[in-house]
């Protein structure tokens, strides 16, 4: 845009945006700081010294519940959900590029999966397993429940990619004699790769943090969000913040690694075209 003059509205909007970012991150920063509270410190300011006391406390089994176990379960579950989300939504994305009987029904079912309140999914799966006499488990029923939340996001992202995807690349590959599989492997997938990494990340993080859909489906072993939720009702020390800080830092690390990978891919691709030109 040629009009580079920045009036009052620009500065007002910038201020608004700044406040919004503060609103988004402020509270998280607060608990990050408070998790270093001294051993005598409480849930609010002022800081009563600075220590790692509450982080140490976190790793003592008796102080809080089974933090290590629930973390491992959430991690494993998140990874499985991630792989399945990428695979299933990519495959379905290919299917939706052609006509097939029931495509509309499947599309609406997928959208419905986003709209149906999480507690209904939890209740429904819980009831179903109950009636069938099956034991709900975090790696079975809870995984299914998580997929009903991650797959719609995955499919919508894949849709968005395919809608912007230029079919000329595929036609060119075919004209050059590539088999359908070679076209997918060497042309389509490399183009989709960044977005698929995005789908994978959303699958993992959505599952890793999912609470409502896990509530009635996890069975006798807690995932991390269930564990944290349990803590909110019976833990009144900053150990809660220590756990909150740790899992938030963990999430940020994953997002950071993904974003850096994406930036790296972009640079490599730009480098390629730059070299060719």
């Amino acid at each position: 845009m040629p009009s580079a003059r920045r009036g009052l509205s620009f500065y007002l909007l910038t201020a608004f945006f700044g406040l919004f970012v503060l609103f988004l991150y402020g509270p998280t920063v607060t608990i990050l700081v408070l998790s270093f509270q001294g051993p005598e410190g409480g849930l609010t300011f002022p800081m009563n010294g600075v220590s790692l006391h509450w982080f140490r406390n976190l790793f003592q089994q008796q102080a809080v519940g089974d933090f290590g176990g629930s973390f491992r379960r959430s991690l494993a579950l998140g990874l499985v959900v991630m792989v399945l989300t990428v695979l299933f939504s990519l495959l379905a994305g290919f299917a939706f590029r052609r006509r097939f009987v029931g495509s509309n029904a499947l599309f609406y079912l997928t959208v419905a999966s986003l709209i149906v309140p999480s507690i209904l999914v939890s209740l429904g799966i819980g009831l179903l397993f109950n009636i069938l006499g099956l034991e709900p488990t975090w790696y079975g029923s809870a995984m299914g429940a998580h997929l009903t939340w991650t797959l719609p996001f995955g499919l919508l992202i894949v849709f968005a990619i395919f809608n912007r995807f230029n079919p000329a690349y595929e036609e060119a590959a075919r004209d050059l004699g590539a088999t359908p599989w070679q076209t997918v492997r060497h042309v389509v997938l490399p183009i989709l790769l960044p977005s698929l990494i995005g789908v994978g990340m959303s699958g993992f993080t959505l599952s890793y943090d999912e609470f409502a859909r896990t509530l009635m489906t996890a069975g006798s072993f807690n995932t991390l969000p269930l564990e944290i939720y349990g803590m909110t009702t019976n833990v009144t020390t900053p150990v809660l913040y220590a756990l909150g800080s740790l899992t938030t830092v963990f999430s940020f690390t994953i997002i950071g690694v993904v974003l850096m990978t994406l930036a790296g891919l972009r640079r490599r691709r730009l480098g390629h075209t730059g070299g060719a030109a």
Partner: protein
Amino acid sequence: MTVTAAHAPPDPAVSGRVPSGHVPPTTKPGGGAVRARRWRRLAPYLQAAPLAVTLVLFLLIPILTILVVSFWDYDSVRVIPDFVLTNYAELLTSPVTWKTYLNTLKFAGLTWAITLVIGFTVAYFLAFHVHSTVWQMVLFLVCTIPFWTSNIIRMISWIPFLGRNGLLNSTLIAAGVIDQPLEFLLFSDFSVVLAYVHLNALFMVVPIFNSMMRIDRALVEAARDAGAKGWQVVWNVILPLSKPGIAIGSIFVVTLVMGDFITVRLMSGGQSASIGLMIANEISLLQYPAAAANAVILLAVVLLMVAAMLRVVDIRKEL
């Protein structure tokens, strides 16, 4: 299927007419071609199967189970398969239900209005006032990253901020604005709506930003050339063209708030109720048929609200 250069010389005239996503038929006659054609017809079904099976097993059948169980009977120790309407009758004749629905709708309405204003403003800033694409991407990411972290933690993090001895109260007291800590800040309807806005504003920002990025900048220029002032451009050009994004964002925010129970439970400190919380409480009391009837009504209400919003926009076109 192998197509060698000798068999099928690339013909730009032909491949130009081939519709996208459609493999041109091979010129080689015989069993291979038939098999390939059959595979091509079958492929979409096989590709869609994992998604379809997952959603049928873990969404459709569970919802049908809820529907069935909502007609069952129960006593204090067990659930009895039956066909009774008492669950619905008790639910719909209880004034508590209506009050709770009213409360839930109030939360949804307030959250919707606030997130809409925030979402539109933030998206407008990003789409029309940040000119560098790199900055646009960076700031957009800054807005979206909290979405990938735990909701429960994000709710808890308001406690040291809003509590009786929290940051806000002590700042206000130190500044001499108030002399008693404000009690309404935490464990109140205020903190519930605040948390809803905090958790869900993103669902407005992203689709509205997406819609705005597709607005042809020439339209904005044209409006300016025709003499429109800044706010007139926003009101008469950008707002109408952002409607699809607004509708999608609204669907997200409204359905998330309508079905929520965890935010109300954590942030109201037991002072307030929502339909989701009512269902969660019935579940913990093992009153499954009552919870199921409640869930069916909630689903019906949510679907009606979504249907109303979908009249504004065809989401499939917006992806």
